[in-house]
């Protein structure tokens, strides 16, 4: 549970001095703006603009020379591999703030959004540095991830003449993980968003049929005038053109008319190999559904099967068949 009462008051008082604070360290580009990094970036991003990578094309462009993609701005001052291995400057007030959150149980961190503005195109040889200010810390919020606080920072970028060339804002959520941190990363997203089967689109002509499935019945549409059965449902009888219809419930008994064993591609939410059959129902219409609990090699055309309505994932009921 998140801290509350006096403990929360004390904690939030400790946060106040950080608002408006420069984080105390300057990020300085380790290399001047250069063609090699630009080319690698463009290849990775699939950006084929000649002004970035082709000196001839760039010469003929409005820039008159090679320039860097504006969206690369932050790349020029990133810390490289050291960032990933956790090395950090002890003077860094932003890191200090994060440690304060960690100590009070808000160990989770997730970046939520960024805004950027570019003052000018960067040219080869430009030397970039950046300073960062903690602009604001939100009040406590209940989010989908848990209770936490949003931290907003603004980073301003300068060139070798100390002229500003752009800025970016960055917002992160520091939140309280309910589960141990290590397990959360690996398991929580999968459990929360376990893929489900594709659901049917529901509209006037088919919603009633799916409602029947919810009630545990495999329905067959029936013409109220000529009594002909039809499936899939449609608004008019092809035999007598009557728009009046009702429905009957199938016994679910049938035989396999044809079937397939789906092995590829594996769509999330389904289990493979997946057997799907066209079944001749004893009422005379056909129905397409999964055949369960039979080895794919044992499924045969002509096999007697019995339908039942079952949950096929966490949310959806479907008629499925088993060997009768």
């Amino acid at each position, binding site marked *: 549970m998140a801290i509350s009462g006096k403990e929360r008051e004390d904690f939030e008082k400790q946060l106040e001095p950080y608002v408006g604070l420069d984080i105390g360290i300057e990020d300085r580009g380790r290399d001047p703006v250069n063609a090699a990094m630009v080319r690698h970036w463009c290849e990775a991003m699939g950006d084929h603009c000649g002004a970035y990578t082709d000196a001839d094309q760039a010469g003929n462009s409005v820039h008159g020379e090679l320039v860097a993609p504006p969206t690369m701005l932050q790349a020029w001052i990133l810390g490289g591999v050291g960032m990933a291995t956790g090395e950090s400057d002890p003077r860094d007030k932003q890191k200090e703030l994060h440690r304060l959150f960690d100590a009070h149980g808000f160990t989770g961190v997730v970046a939520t959004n960024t805004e950027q503005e570019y003052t000018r195109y960067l040219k080869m040889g430009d030397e970039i540095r950046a300073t960062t200010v903690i602009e604001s810390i939100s009040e406590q919020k209940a989010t989908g991830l848990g209770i936490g606080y949003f931290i907003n920072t603004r980073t301003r970028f300068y060139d070798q003449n100390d002229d500003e060339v752009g800025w970016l804002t960055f917002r992160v959520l520091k939140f309280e993980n309910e589960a141990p941190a290590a397990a959360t990363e690996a398991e929580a997203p999968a459990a929360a968003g376990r893929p489900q089967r594709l659901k049917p689109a529901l509209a006037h*002509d*088919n919603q009633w049929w799916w409602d029947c499935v919810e009630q545990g019945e495999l329905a067959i549409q029936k013409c109220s005038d000529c009594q002909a059965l039809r499936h899939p449902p449609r608004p008019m009888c092809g035999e007598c053109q009557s728009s009046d219809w009702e429905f009957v419930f199938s016994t679910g008994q049938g035989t396999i008319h044809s079937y*397939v064993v789906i092995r590829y591609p594996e*769509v999330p939410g389904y289990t493979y190999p997946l057997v799907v059959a066209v079944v001749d129902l004893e009422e005379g219409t056909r129905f397409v559904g999964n055949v369960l609990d039979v080895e794919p090699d044992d499924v045969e055309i002509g096999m007697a099967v019995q339908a039942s309505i079952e949950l096929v994932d966490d949310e959806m009921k479907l008629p499925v068949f088993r060997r009768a």
Partner: protein
Amino acid sequence: MSTTLKDEAAIVGIGETEYSKNSGRSELALASEACRAAIRDAGLTPADIDGMTTFTMDTSDEIEVARAVGVGDLTFFSRTPHGGGAAVGVMHQAALAVATGSAKAVVVYRALNGRSGARYSQGVSGGPTTSDLIHWSWYMPSGLMTPASWVAMVTMRYMHETGCTSADLAEVCLAQREHAVKNPRAFFYQKPLTLEEHQSARAIVEPLGLYDCCQETDGAAACVVVSPEMARDLPNPPAMIRSVSQAAGAHQESMTSFYRPSLTDLPEVDLVARQCWEISGLTPDDIDAAVIYDAFSSIVLFQLESYGFCKKGEAADFIRDGALRLGGRLPTNTHGGQLSEAYIHGMNGVNEGVRLIRGTSSSQPEKNDHVLVTAGVGIPTSGMILGKA
């Protein structure tokens, strides 16, 4: 005005992009390049074009392509639905336009980033609630959502009824691969396939294995259709459209016509075939080579029967001794087809049909008076017979 489409239009230009797995450019760029190539091949300029037609599934609008290529005023534009079933339906549209004077010169095109962009093998899913989505909703929840799975359902029943085996399907793949090996445009150029490789390949949707399924391709193909009179003044020998037709059958669904009395009846293919023979006055005996739509190997067999090259249920016997190969009774998919050249929704097959009439295929049969070109199976479909002027 004529009463049929016999010899009322001719294909005078063909063009295509390279076929690849990652074109690196937009579908509009591919469409524009293929149209430009077809117009040049016809000996025309964009200013001569006044009609454009493509598939409903194409993402490049007629007027977008027209602007890109520099085509001016258009008096005819249209779309044909149902995926690969439109492969010759678009030719039907072009022939109708030219025969009625609605347009003088129609460019037909199809462009897709079928591998690097939206892949049909990945299945159908959400979208606006149209009658089409309601239709797929009968199959998506059970996982039946790829072209391979729909065609496999009919193929399983066909094999059950006829005794056709996977090795019989392999002959379609091997014959076509033999052609692709000689075709520099083909993905499988200089890459032969053996029966053992076919039989040991992984299953995609049983009974269809990897090599029974067409490729996914980035690329575009286009052709130019004009009147026979206009064709006389152009540099290439015209491929006359001797007949062309479209059909949808009773109890037709798009790819899932599973509720017909017989799952293996394909009344729409039968109906296209009947019209092709009636309009042209020809019979299967008059056909020297064929481009038979081959999204999957099995549908080539179905069509050989519907078009009357053999009796129903006997296609495996018909092809067993090499009928589809060069020197056989009906050299088929001499470019390698969509299994082995490229999957451009059948438009690359239309261009191969023209090459066969011109005598310029990389697997050119000696006799080439008449060539059959067909379209997708399991959907409303189309077909045509090409001949010499």
